[in-house]
């Protein structure tokens, strides 16, 4: 049982270490997804949101973590 819990914990931990990082990434992906769906002509703009959003999330997250 302990082993199963450890495996499940490891599986979740693969993707979520710092919850705020995961949430912000998902928010950026959702935003890009909404734009790509509502405005198919602006899919490259959705790509730009995805790219710069992820880079921004990374910088913000490490800066916040360093201040803690």
């Amino acid at each position, binding site marked *: 049982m302990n082993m199963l819990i450890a495996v499940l914990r490891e599986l979740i931990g*693969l993707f979520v270490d710092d919850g705020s990082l995961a949430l912000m990434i998902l928010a950026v992906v959702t935003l890009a997804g909404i734009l790509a769906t509502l405005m198919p002509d602006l899919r490259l703009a959705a790509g730009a949101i995805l790219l710069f959003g992820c880079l921004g999330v990374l910088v913000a997250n490490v800066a916040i973590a360093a201040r803690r």
Partner: protein
Amino acid sequence: MTTVFLASLVEAVEALTIVLAVATVRGWRPAGLGAFAGLLVLALIVVALGPILDRVPLHLLQLAIGILLLLFGMRWLRKAILRSAGVIPLHDELMTFAAETAELREQARRNEARLDWLAALASFKAVLLEGLEVVFIVIALSAGRGMLIPASAGALAACLLVAGVGFLVHRPLARVPENTLKFAVGVMLSAFGLFWTGEGLGVAWPGADLAIVGFAVLFLTVGLASVAFLRRPRIKVLS
């Protein structure tokens, strides 16, 4: 395949530390049996999941795998940046080895009869838990592309290399630049994740597959700049 190989090196070094601790306290038999059983379970997961994912529509698979790779890669990159900047301590294989050895000796003191099982279980658990990350990377980078065998071969080559060196030197591989490898793999996985998430959303990236290289350069630049920024001396203003 390079990404899989480098990621597998990092995880294999971490698993080796525990397996070596088990071998030091209880001998190579339980350590080896536990590690072999762990590898067998991991191989079964890859064999079972790989072909199933090949049947999922590519568009959906790209989006799902892309998002998971972004979450996974950026988690590694974040940790590597914070470690490089000295915000969190580096992973210390020697300390892990000492802690695991002490725990196994304590278990030996309490329950000698079951120790071989406990030792094998510790070895099995280490290989299984560290290997799950490798399995994810192998499946994520090969799914839908028929690349399961080369990706698995890359992972296996890294594991064999680490196991061979570990067996020869018989001590934790503390000199492997684990954080640098983690930084590099984090950059590559984030770039792949971004590319596939975009493709899954229908974005036609300029330069097609070459865009991945551009994304990797951007993630690397931002990562290194973040390390430099976080390392800079802080000036305290006294009021």
